[in-house]
């Protein structure tokens, strides 16, 4: 599944960041690495972008960008 399918309050583990070179590299540099845990803090009031917590900091990502990130091991509240 991908990151944009997650709901608020859920956590998952990153499997792979897709998309083109620039985008992937940028995200990797910001810490979106395989095996990193991502927590969905909230969706913006207009449902886009998403606020995430990873590696102890908060970062926002548009929904279509989050859709390029594969995750697994979903947990947290339904």
């Amino acid at each position: 599944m991908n990151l944009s399918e997650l709901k608020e309050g859920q956590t998952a583990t990153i499997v792979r960041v897709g998309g083109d070179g620039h985008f992937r590299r940028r995200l990797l540099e910001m810490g979106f690495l395989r095996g990193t845990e991502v927590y969905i803090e909230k969706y913006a009031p207009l449902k886009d972008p998403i606020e995430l917590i990873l590696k102890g900091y908060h970062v926002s990502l548009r929904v279509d960008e989050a859709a390029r990130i594969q995750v697994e091991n979903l947990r947290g509240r339904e």
Partner: protein
Amino acid sequence: MPQKSITVALAGNPNSGKSTIFNNLTGTRQKVGNWPGVTVEKKEGHLKANGYDLTVVDLPGTYSLTAYSIEEVVARNFILDEKPDVVVDIIDASNLERNLYLATQLRELDTKVIFVLNMADVARERGVKIDADKLSELLDVPVVFTVGNKNTGTRQLLETIISVAKSEVELPRTRRVYYGKDIEKAIHELSELIEEKAGSKLPYNIRWVAIKLLENDRIVKERVRQFTNPHGEAILQEAELKRQGLREFFDEEPEIVMTDHRYGFIAGILKEVLKTVSERRVDISRQIDQVLTNRLLGLPIFVFFIWAMFQLTFSLGAYPTGWIDAGVGWLGQTVGGILPDGLFRDLIVDGVIAGVGSVVIFLPNILILFFCIALFEDTGYMARAAFLMDKVMHLIGLHGKSFISLLMGFGCNAPAIMATRTLESEKDRILTILINPLMSCSARLPVYILLAGTFFGAKAGNAIFSIYALGIVLAIALGRLFRFTLFKGEVAPFVMELPPYRLPTFKGLLIHMWDRSKIFLKKMGGVILIGSVIVWSLSAFPRQVQFSKDYETEAAQIRAQYGASIAAAKGDDLERLSRERDKAISTLETVQAREKIEKSYIGRIGKVLAPMFAPIGMDWRGSVAVLTGFVAKEIVVSTMGVLYAAGADEDEKSEALKVALKKSDMTPLSAYAMMAFVLIYVPCVATVAAIRRETNSWKWTAFSITYSTILAWLVAFVIYQGGKAIGLA
């Protein structure tokens, strides 16, 4: 003699507190400019300590040192080319892992580095303790603790900078990121090749060059080609071969694998230096965001903040604006009284003082506006505003942060355009600048009020509102059009950090406010001065006009006519007659002024241009009015006052001008077309100066002027001719 001057470069992630440290080090002795050739802001400060002259350069905040973004290129080139004596990396201690990523890259360059662990107090509050000695030992780098917003650790940082800068010690070559057996082999082989072919020609660390070539870094490739002639191509070919081999082996781009290794290296360091003291996390920032970006409350609160900003700007700003207005008026009168009658006095009083005065008057508004913006930025709310508005702005192809700039445009476009500096992507910045003038600024309102008030009566409010809406609709349409034509290509990803809220320092706020306001005053001052003098000259020359009648004689006749009766009159009659006489003379003077401007150069230009304005329903007087509006849009009203018969000091409420306009051949339709024209056509001289400065390009400035004027004409044409065609005239 030991070296007496030291250059220090400040590097660090955005939001690491870098600018606070910079302010603490240099105080107000700062110079703000642009990096050569790009619109990235460059800050430089000077200080003296222990007999050394220190130049501190604030590099753009970056997460990495690749060649993808312009900020990264600027920061890296400075370190490579200017070779600062020391690079200080500001590390947000509460966010150590990601901040160390940049640190590992800095360590790969041949440069002396100091790590500053900033905001360790915040980290401790979050239950994290950092073993600085261990970190210093593991990376072979001096480590200093600071708390930027409490100004602690600054002295120690300064001492460390000086001692590191003057030390002659060899740079440590161990303790570097280990990229794994296969990549290390490739790095080693490539390094040897470079060493053999061109070792002495490359002014950079060879291992670093090899790493960058394996990462396919376009700028390093360019430099290798440039420095290692004629072996450049051979080196690049070998690098490409190695990249291919690695790609096949890992089934992944080498640079991605290398990024992974850097984080692996960091994870190893963190294990040794980080101690989790307590698991309990009191995260105030997160609690604030439960409210400020709340699903229901987030947007209303944002709207309230913006409303409050405008209220503060325009209602609080109104007092000092009034004082400045009075001051400029007084200065004009005093100087006018001192100087002898003549051309020089007119130039100083009507050209220079009035022209520059009309811009200086915006200063209080601008100071307050920039103070609010600095407050939004320094607290961290700006990122939340972008987070809230991104969905809306993304529809136009813009970034969430563009919203603030566009909104400020409704106040005044010049500072609004300067506020685009908060946008990181140059494409976003230029696009936001280009559509910004379509946000109808407050100076255009008097024109609307005059025209709509005259021709639309009770429906004036609707007419004015529709003009504002027209501007917004055009901005959306053009934003999309430009995005898909001029700024094709991928949209910058919205990977935006939402930093913890911070209590800004008052000094920091004032410095940020003043930095921008200073630009407005200094740089714009020159352009505006020239612009005002040009418009003044065009309307003041030629000096000697062949009047159609002898106004002097006529004025004397009027005086003589009333002279006798006034001498005989008493009480109320005396007053009434004096008033009648003054009125007759002022009417005569207005007629003279009108004839003078009609025969001045600007009047002649207006008449020449009149055929171009005819299809949009404007006569030569309208064209002269919009020409003078280039200095400041509200001048359109006073010019119309002169040309349409009332006194020169008319304002939009004046009944006489309204009556005169109604009697002219203007119709509601042509008035509406003119309103649309005034909305869209070339922005005022202050805004043009801001566009020139912020795009750093005459090409974009010319484009902005051209497209807006052509668009204005087209829209007015469609309104006027379309309206006539359906029988509205």
